[in-house]
């Protein structure tokens, strides 16, 4: 009786050790690799916009395809900050040495995507800012396993996330 109980516990433990543990380990590595490619893709996309002064539909597509290739779904947040020098020009008027403050106004994901759909690309100018944030939307296997064991929850627990932000260095043609 006592012996068979121990055997049941042993089998249960063995199952965890031999199955769940490697699975967790592999899925964690899988997420690491996904993280790696998400980070690279995000940086590449943003840097390209920054140096060409242009965000194109093709580049955005290529970027989202790279993300999809990791096997997860992502929330992609785009933000374009347009530099507006007009207010600084007004405030500098007439004064001898004053340097007015430059203002920015933002365009967010839906606006940006709409414009990409409509025009095929978005023109930017030197001094504008572009930033991209990527977070995984689905729960990865590693996340599921982890939450099963240590029950981590909460919306902030992203497994794969990358953000990149750059100033635009060229005027688009």
């Amino acid at each position: 009786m006592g012996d068979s109980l121990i055997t049941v516990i042993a089998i249960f433990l063995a199952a965890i050790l031999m199955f769940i543990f490697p699975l967790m380990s592999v899925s964690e590595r899988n997420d690491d690799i996904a993280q790696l490619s998400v980070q690279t893709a995000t940086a590449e996309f943003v840097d390209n916009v920054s140096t060409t002064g242009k965000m194109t539909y093709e580049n955005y597509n290529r970027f989202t395809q790279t993300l999809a290739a990791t096997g997860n779904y992502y929330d992609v947040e785009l933000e374009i900050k347009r530099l507006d020098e007009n207010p600084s020009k007004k405030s500098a008027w007439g004064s001898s040495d004053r340097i007015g403050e430059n203002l920015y106004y933002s365009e967010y994901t839906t606006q940006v995507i709409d414009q990409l759909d409509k025009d095929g690309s978005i023109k930017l100018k030197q001094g504008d800012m572009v930033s991209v944030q990527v977070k995984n939307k689905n729960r990865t296997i590693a996340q599921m396993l982890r939450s099963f064991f240590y029950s981590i929850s909460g919306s902030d627990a992203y497994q794969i996330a990358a953000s990149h932000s750059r100033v635009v260095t060229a005027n688009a043609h």
Partner: protein
Amino acid sequence: MKLQHLSIIFIIIMLPISLIISAYTQAQIDTLVLQNSYDAKLMDASYDAIKAFDINTMNNDLSNVADTVRDDINAAISTFMTSFSASMGVPGGTDRYIKPYIPAMLFTLYDGYYIYAPTLTENNGFAYTLQPYNYYSVTYKRGSTYAVVNYTLDNYIVVYLKKGNEYEVRSGYLIAEDISVGEENTIEEYVPVANVATNEVNIRARNVTLDIYNQETPKGGEYLYERNELYYINPNSAKKYYAEASTFTNWVNENLKDIEARHAMRNGAHIFEEDDNTKIFDIGSNNNPEDINSRFNQHRMEVIKNSIQDNLNYSISAYAASAGANEDTKYNFRLPQINPDEWITISSNICMVAFVQGMPVGTRYYNNYSIVQSATNKFFVDPENIYYIDYAEDEKTRSYHKIDCPYLNQNSDKITGFSNYNFQKFTVKISNGGETTKQTYYRHREGACYYCIVGGHYDSDSKNFRDEYGNLYPENLVGNKQDAYYKAIGREKYNQYTTTNYFGEKNKQEG
């Protein structure tokens, strides 16, 4: 063997493997994160540098003179080094630790380029210096015709021609066809005006197409401060531009028509394929020097690329050969592959390219380059950087636009375009009785249009006169916009100062 034992053995094997893989992946991620942060730092430092260059040259009336450009470039380099060092966390902002990893920097200017590279000195140290200026030049040899052509970032060239025993030097702009433009509008700009009686200097709106009036030749009791030539715009500039360009183009067609790409030589060696019979100087509507895809332009960019590549290669490998002795950087420096799109950028814009190599990053070496272009400068006229004002609009509400903005009224006959640097802030130094004060002002009070310039929107009609890469084809512009476009280009190019303007005198006499 019991199941428990099996699982223990399994764990003993799996655990270290898993740990090692985990550590390895983590190291890769760390390296990548570090690499990304270096990328950002490199780009930011480069951006700071080109901004410094733009601002310095903007307020420097002599900035087209080679020696002052050297100073401005040296200032830009030191901005780059300081900014890069500071962001890399080098204490005290000294660039001593950064410099060994920078085998070369490149500055492309209007008619040539500078390379900044470490060169070995006599006592085995490195001197970081700006090398002598290189022109975008190439030699063509065909029979008894011998020609050296200096290219530029646009359609302006200088030709040193030797036919038999006869020499001739000419310079000018190449155009596909003579364009007749309408009368130039009156151009009013805010400029510093000095009162003859009181010597007081104020910023006033004046008609700068009217007359040259200097201290020696004041007009209405005032003169333009400090020298009028800086502001004066000849109202016939555009007409003269097309007339002289057309004369020059005819001369080129006459004398260089038969020259083919295979005749091009540098340092005694042919630089194109032996059977490349592209006729570069057969200028006409099927070879329009202002069209980026024309034979002329493709060849021009190839020549520039070829020259830069040769000299960069030389500089970097010379550094690599001597850097072996350098404790800081045991790295095999070499010129990285620069992709074709980037070459187009480099050979058509004022650019700074910074190479960073051999910098240890995690398990690897950091190896990258940055290309930043100057967006506002006085060195050359980029049609895309000409902004247009419709003077028929109310002065208080009007703004400046790109030519294809729908808010720029195509039916207005008062559209005038200016190179974008004219909309920047200017500083004038006013000396009054030994006391010097600085005053900043704008030549044009108009603000940037929120639709086209600030917001970067496309006009849906743009597709009619732009190709898929965004290149503008002015012949498709409608209404008065076409005339405004040709006038602005002509005027701005005509008033563009180059050190070789002198060789263009003959175009005036014949034209």
